[in-house]
C-alpha cells in the first residue's frame, strides 16, 4: 500500500500570507472535485453489483411466483432449475478435478523448475490460453477434441463401466459431460496456475534455502516449504477457477448436447445442461414468461458464483493480512 506522506495537502498554503488565498482555495476546490469523482467511480462499482442483483430479481420475479404450469417444463421454477444447477456444478467440478493438479504442476514448473530466463515467456504462453475467446474453444471442442475422445470413452466404458460415471452407452459424437469438463479445465488452467505461481513465488527464500542446505532434494524442499506455505493460496485459486467454470457459457453450449435430466453418466449422449448454456441456447427464441424464467436462472447462477468468488477472495485477503508474506 502506498500512503501519501501528507493527506492535508494545501494546508500550508492556507496558513500562508493572505495575499494568495485564492490559489489555496482553488486548489482545495480542485481536490474536492477530483476526489469526489474518484469516490463516485468507486461507488459505481458497488451500485453496479447491487444493480445486477436488483434488476435480475425484478425481471426474474414473475417466474418465481408464476403458477407451475406456466413455467417452461410445466412443473414450476425449482424443478426447472434443478437439473441445470446439477449440470452446472457437475461440469465445473470435473473441470476443477482435472485442472487442480495440472495447474499446480504448471505453476511449479514456471516458478521452481524452468530455467530463470525462459520462465517469464513460458508464463505468457500459458496466459495466452486465457485470451482465446470462448466461442473458439467451443468450436475446437466440438470439431477436434470430441471426436478424439470417442475411443477413450469407449475404453472407459469397457474397463470402468461398472462405475456409474462411465456406464455408457458411449456417445457417438463425443459431445458429453466429460468433454465439456475437459474444455472447461483448459479454460480455467491459466487463472488457476497464475494464482498458484504467484503464491509459490512468495515462499520465503530463506526457508527454501534452509531446506536445501539441510540436504533436501528439490521435490522435498517444495513439499516442506513451498506447498505448506501456499496452501490457502492454492485453495483460493481453485475457487476462482471454479467460479469461472460455473459461469462459462458458449464453450459448454456448443459442446454439450443437452437434455433436462440429472445423470451421473459422464460419457453418454444425454447430459444435463448448465444454467449458462441453457440461457444462451434458449434466450434468443424466448418470449414472455420464458424470458423471466431464464433471467431467474441467471439470478441463481449469479448468486452461486458470487458466493464462490466471495469466499475465494476473502481467503486471499485474510491471507495477505496475516501470513506475513508481504512483510
Amino acid at each position, binding site marked *: 500500500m502506498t500512503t501519501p506522506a501528507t493527506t492535508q*495537502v494545501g494546508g500550508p498554503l492556507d496558513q500562508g500570507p493572505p495575499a494568495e488565498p485564492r490559489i489555496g482555495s482553488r486548489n482545495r476546490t480542485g481536490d474536492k472535485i477530483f476526489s469526489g469523482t474518484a469516490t463516485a467511480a468507486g461507488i459505481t462499482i458497488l451500485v453496479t453489483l447491487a444493480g445486477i442483483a436488483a*434488476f435480475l430479481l425484478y425481471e426474474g420475479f414473475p417466474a418465481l411466483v408464476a403458477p407451475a404450469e406456466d413455467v417452461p417444463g410445466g412443473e414450476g421454477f425449482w424443478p426447472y432449475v434443478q437439473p441445470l444447477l446439477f449440470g452446472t456444478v457437475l461440469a465445473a467440478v470435473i473441470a476443477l478435478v482435472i485442472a487442480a493438479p495440472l495447474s*499446480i504442476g504448471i505453476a511449479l*514448473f514456471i516458478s521452481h523448475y524452468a530455467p530463470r530466463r525462459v520462465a517469464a515467456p513460458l508464463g505468457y504462453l500459458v496466459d495466452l490460453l486465457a485470451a482465446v475467446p470462448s466461442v473458439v474453444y467451443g468450436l475446437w471442442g466440438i470439431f477436434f477434441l470430441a471426436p478424439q475422445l470417442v475411443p477413450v470413452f469407449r475404453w472407459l466404458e469397457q474397463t470402468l463401466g461398472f462405475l456409474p460415471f462411465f456406464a455408457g452407452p458411449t456417445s457417438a459424437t463425443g459431445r458429453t459431460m466429460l468433454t465439456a469438463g475437459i474444455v472447461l479445465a483448459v479454460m480455467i488452467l491459466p487463472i488457476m496456475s497464475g494464482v498458484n505461481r504467484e503464491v509459490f513465488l512468495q515462499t520465503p527464500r530463506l526457508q527454501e534455502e534452509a531446506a536445501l542446505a539441510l540436504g533436501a532434494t528439490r521435490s522435498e524442499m517444495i513439499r516442506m516449504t513451498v506447498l505448506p506455505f501456499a496452501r490457502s493460496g492454492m485453495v483460493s485459486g481453485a475457487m476462482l477457477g471454479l467460479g469461472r467454470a460455473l459461469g462459462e457459457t*458458449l464453450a459448454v453450449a456448443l459442446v454439450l448436447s443437452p437434455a433436462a435430466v440429472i445423470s451421473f453418466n459422464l460419457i453418454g449422449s444425454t447430459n444435463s445442461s448448465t444454467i449458462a448454456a441453457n*440461457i444462451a441456447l434458449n434466450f434468443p427464441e424466448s418470449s414472455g414468461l420464458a424470458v423471466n424464467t431464464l433471467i431467474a436462472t*441467471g439470478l441463481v447462477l449469479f448468486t452461486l458464483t458470487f458466493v464462490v468468488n466471495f469466499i475465494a477472495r476473502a481467503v486471499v485477503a485474510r491471507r495477505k493480512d496475516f501470513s506475513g508474506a508481504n512483510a
Partner: protein
Amino acid sequence: MTTTTTPTALTSSEVGLNQGRLPRWSTPATIVAVVVLGALATLVLDAPVPLVVGLGVLALLVTLPALAWVVEGRRRANDRMWTVLVTLAFALALLPLLSLVITVTQNGLARFDWDFLTTDMRGVLGEGGGALHAIVGTLIITGLATVISVPIGIMTAVYLVEYGRGRLARAITLLVDVMTGIPSIVAGLFAFALFAIFFGPSVRFGIGGAVALSVLMIPVVVRSVEEMLKLVPNELREASYALGVSQWRTIVRVVLPTAAAGIATGVTLAIARVIGETAPLLIITGSTNILNTDPTDGRMSSLPIFTYYSYTIPGVPPEFGVERAWAAALTLFLIVMLLNLVARVVSRIFGSPTSR
C-alpha cells in the same frame, strides 16, 4: 545420503563430487532414446500415435527414476520422478494451445480472404458472404465499452490507491475482485433486464452490448491500473507535494503519466479480454445479416456471434456456413493475439514505472 557401500578399487579420478550421481547427459540421453524408439515404433510397426505418445511418457516416468534409484538412491529417484511429472504437466498444458492454433488456422484459412473481410451477409444463402458487418459491430461495441470502462476504471483505481481508506475502500477492493468473477452471461442478462424496463422485452441494440461488456471490463481495468499506480514510487508524490502542488494535480500530472505505459498495457489486455465475449452479446445485441453502424438502433452483429450462428445455423448446404464460422474464429483469434502482442510491446518499450 547417496551410496553407502563404496567399492574398494576406485582410481582417484572416479572419487569426486559426482560419485554416486547419474552423469549430466543421462536425462537428455533418456529422452532422445525414448523419442527415437517411439519414432521407430510409429514408422516401422505402424503403431497409433496417441498410444506411442502415451507409452513414451510412461517410459520416461519409469526409466529416469529407475536409473536414479539404482545409482543415486530412493530419495533422488523420487525427486527425478517429480521433475518429470511437473514438466509433463506443463507440456500437457501447451498441447491444447498448440492444437487450438493449428485447428483454427487450418480450418479458418479456407475462407479468410479479401471477400470475407469486405462484404456482409445481405442476401447470401450458400457460398460467399463475409463478416464485414460482424467486424464493424465488434469494433463499435468494444469501442463503446472501452469509452465507458476506462474512465470509471482509472478513477476507481485512483480512489483505491490515492484516497481510499477505511471500510468503503476495503469493500470496493473486495467487490472489484468478486466482480471479475461475474459470469459473462449474467452481465448480458443485467443489461437486458436494465434496458427491457425502458424499451420493452424485445430490446436489442449495440449500446446495451457495450454496457454488458463494461460490467466485465471495469474490474479488469481497475485491477491492472491499481497495480500500476502502486508501482509509482512514493518519492515522486512527496517531491510534488513538497513543491506545494495539490494532490489532484500531483495525481494528474505526476502519478498518472508515470504509470501511463502500464495503464495502456492493462487497458489493451482488458479489451482483448472482452472482445471475444459471446454470451452477453447473444442476449442483448442479437444478430443480423446486414451492416448496422448505429449502436442506438436495432440488432448488431459481432464476430463471436457471427461465429456462433454460422456454425449452429449454417444454412444449406452447411459446409459454407461452417467455413465462414472458422474464418470468423480465425479473425477473432488474430485480433486477440494482436492486442496481446501490442500490450507486451508497449510494456516492453516503455517499461514499468519502477524502471525510471
